[in-house]
């Protein structure tokens, strides 16, 4: 069974600074997808960034980028120029290439301070 581990229950970053959230996963599949979702207090999950395992290039979306280390099964999220609106729970998630159901990590609560 696939597992996703987020070892940082809480992180804090100052506005305009950079923060990295960690995620590791375990799978025997060769084809899979990895995701970072943001969940603000409104509860609505929002996709931040997605990485296909077969792509070696790290995904980037504006201030958000990932460091995908396939051999180490590591998938960290870097948030640059942090903004107050980035404060939320962040979930790392995994999906096998043959099915769409997501397996989530336990989440990291990100605080952004002035």
């Amino acid at each position, binding site marked *: 069974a696939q597992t996703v581990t987020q070892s940082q229950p809480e992180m804090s970053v100052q506005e305009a600074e950079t923060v990295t959230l960690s995620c590791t996963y375990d799978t025997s599949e060769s084809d899979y997808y990895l995701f970072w979702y943001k969940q603000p207090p409104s509860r609505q999950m929002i996709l931040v960034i997605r990485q296909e395992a077969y792509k070696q290039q790290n995904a980037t979306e504006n201030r958000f980028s990932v460091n995908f280390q396939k051999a180490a099964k590591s998938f960290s999220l870097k948030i640059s120029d942090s903004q107050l609106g980035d404060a939320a729970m962040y979930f790392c998630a995994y999906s096998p290439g043959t099915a769409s159901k*997501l397996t989530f990590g336990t989440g990291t609560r990100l605080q952004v301070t002035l």
Partner: protein
Amino acid sequence: GAGVSQSPSNKVTEKGKDVELRCDPISGHTALYWYRQSLGQGLEFLIYFQGNSAPDKSGLPSDRFSAERTGGSVSTLTIQRTQQEDSAVYLCASSLNGAPSYEQYFGPGTRLTVT
């Protein structure tokens, strides 16, 4: 356009009662998912519908849980004889089709409290 909507947003029920939670996916999305978010278990997959195919029920925790999707659109998650451990936020998501490369769009969830 309209996103995924869920109703009710909050539901309080007594132990032993049945509850129905509703999900309206984005129009045209053929895939629909239910997840549960609880303090004890985190976020977990419950069930997945794709078009007219048989649903993937592999995540349903017990036979008290069931779901249906009528006309390929609206879905209802039913919990019979609710227990206190069923207290959680139930999230629904939809995607254009069931391929994992397609983004899942989530609704705001229904918070279920069993007293």
